[in-house]
């Protein structure tokens, strides 16, 4: 068993086990903990898939940001001692049946396709991102090439597609969706601050 296989099985087991533990745990704080475990292990899967920046962003944004937000939400909305929000056993049984059937559907869909043939037909038989020509930009490293292809794709330039052999046209990147996402984040933060503001009644005597 190679190191890649061993790491994959460790990270896959932790990811799936954490996700299942999120479903089965009833305590919200423990659910948040198992969600941290699952998302962190899936960042490890991203590293195994040659997606280093996506894995780092997963750790920073999800594990560092979103889950802190979730834990604050848990603390600010503590349920009282008389309101137990447990799932009823009948609902859990029904959910188990649905989960079993849905997992069987997805698993049989995945296993009924010969993915090696698909990869070989579309990709000349080797992982695309491992190819050597994708690791440099339009100019050489000694000429000051400091742009990662992923960052250049966000800026609207695609050296990974333009420099592929046999390419006659220039490809477009993701500059407009990037700008839309940035404005969207600004709008979302203002809207969240407005929604969660402290509402104080104005005293009529003052």
């Amino acid at each position, binding site marked *: 068993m190679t190191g890649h296989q061993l790491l994959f099985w460790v990270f896959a087991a932790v990811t*799936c086990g954490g996700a299942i533990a999120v479903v089965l745990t009833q305590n919200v704080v423990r659910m948040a903990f198992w*969600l941290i475990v699952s998302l962190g292990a899936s960042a490890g899967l991203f590293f195994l898939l040659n997606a280093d920046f996506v894995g780092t962003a997963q750790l920073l944004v*999800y594990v560092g940001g979103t889950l802190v937000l979730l834990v*604050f*939400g848990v603390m600010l909305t503590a349920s009282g001692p008389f309101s137990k929000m447990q799932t009823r056993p009948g609902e859990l049984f029904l959910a188990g049946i649905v989960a079993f059937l849905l997992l069987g559907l997805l*698993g049989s869909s995945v296993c009924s396709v010969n993915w090696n043939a698909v990869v070989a037909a579309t990709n000349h038989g080797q992982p695309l991102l491992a190819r050597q020509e994708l690791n440099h930009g339009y100019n050489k490293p000694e000429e000051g090439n400091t742009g990662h292809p992923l960052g250049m794709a966000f800026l609207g330039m695609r050296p*990974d597609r333009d420099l592929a052999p046999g390419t006659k046209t220039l490809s477009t990147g993701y500059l407009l969706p990037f700008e839309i996402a940035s404005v969207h*984040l600004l709008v*979302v933060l203002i809207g969240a601050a407005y929604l*969660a503001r402290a509402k104080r009644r104005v005293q009529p005597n003052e």
Partner: protein
Amino acid sequence: MNHSPVKFFPVSVKAVLKKYRFDPQNRGLSVDLSSYLLVGAVLFVAGVVCMATKRNGIGVLMGVELVLNGANINFVAFANYTKLGLDGQVISLFVIVLAAAEAAVALAIALSFYNNHLTIDVDQANQLQG
């Protein structure tokens, strides 16, 4: 490529077990695209069940995060193994950013709901029921 008919459930379990059994010739459990897709499928199913069964509003949010993360694993796996290339990583980054934004807004809504109802039990949110 011949098209085999869609297999029903017991056959697929047998296929999964046959694919991932210990094979001395293969020197262990082989890892390819379908392994990552199965991990994504497990995350998706766990997220859907979490959304459906949790009565706590924040638990429902965690289910949404699990579903989005399963989709992300599929995108990055296809980016690595097929001609999708960097586009898959770009889309997964957009998904991460939008999931963070969605979590912020949904938690603000949960806080506002808690301020009005003193609970975040989603079964209590029935004012808009016709």
